[in-house]
């Protein structure tokens, strides 16, 4: 499912310690796949919330759509084809009420964190690194708001060496299912 990177110029030989030439692109594609899942998931979440919580879900949906659009533009600017949203996503657990909707939202935000840490570590310019670092913080804040859970190291928990595994994390809920996208 990984999109072929743009042709790489072969004139420069990367040093053994340099990031892989397509590390940033892979990280952007993984983050984009995660945002596609997030946009889908917040549609489900919002249907089970009311009042302020529903407003929060709407706000989150707008943020995820915006980041999805930014990532798609950046990936195209790198000469690659952005990964598409899946026709549907299997939810990790049934979402039937407000508690389960909040848990899904928190879970999605947590799953996005390592994807954006990977983009922080592979970004080739400051603007991309800042975009990614702000996304890590935004996802950590939203995860806490939805579930009251906090983490010492958002996006790095349970990872032996985050810097060595760019783009290696499965995207959130990226399991195909027969559920049509709403």
């Amino acid at each position, binding site marked *: 499912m990984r999109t072929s990177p743009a042709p790489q110029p072969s004139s420069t030989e990367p040093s053994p310690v340099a990031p892989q030439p397509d590390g940033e692109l892979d990280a952007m594609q993984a983050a984009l796949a995660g945002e596609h899942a997030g946009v889908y998931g917040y549609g489900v979440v919002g249907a089970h919330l009311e009042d302020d919580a529903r407003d929060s879900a709407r706000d989150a949906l707008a943020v995820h759509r915006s980041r999805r659009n930014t990532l798609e533009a950046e990936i195209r600017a790198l000469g690659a084809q952005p990964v598409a949203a899946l026709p549907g996503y299997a939810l990790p657990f049934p979402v039937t009420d407000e508690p389960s909707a909040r848990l899904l939202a928190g879970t999605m935000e947590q799953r996005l964190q390592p994807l954006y840490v990977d983009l922080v570590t592979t970004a080739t310019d400051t603007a991309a690194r800042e975009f990614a670092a702000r996304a890590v913080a935004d996802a950590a804040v939203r995860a806490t708001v939805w579930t009251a859970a906090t983490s*010492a*190291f958002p996006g790095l928990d349970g990872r032996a060496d985050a810097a060595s595994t760019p783009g290696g994390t499965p995207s959130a809920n990226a399991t195909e299912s027969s559920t049509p996208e709403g």
Partner: protein
Amino acid sequence: MVGLAAAPLLGLGLSACSIGHPAKSAPAELPDADSRLRWAALRGEQSLLSLHAAVVAKHPGLAASLEPLTAHHTEHVAAITAEGPLPIAAGGVPEPSAAAVPDDAGSALAAVRDAERVAADARLTGCLQAAGPRLAGLLASVGAAEAAHDAALAAA
């Protein structure tokens, strides 16, 4: 980076040249820019630990809300220290005097939230200045934790 370049840069005036500038108070003998960034982050985490301790000492009722977050800062200190040697001894951050902690528990909590937000911004700045990708990722994560602390305490 056409789209991303439009993102605000915090008014940091960041440029490639700014990477080599040490944090204002970092000792000059630290060998490289990333060590200075780690030193600055370490001082920031120690200051937060001191503030948490002073607030809990004066307002024991806040302990239940603060202590899980205090533990995160202890982990941050360990992770920043583990990234490599820092020739300057860690520690020596003065405890805030009890008088510096507001008498009102709500105001004390607000002071902690302010400090967490300031720290989150400082870690983000450090992330953007870091030469090493691994350090950039660590500082992004630590800053994200502190942004979430502010959110957690808003609900406390």
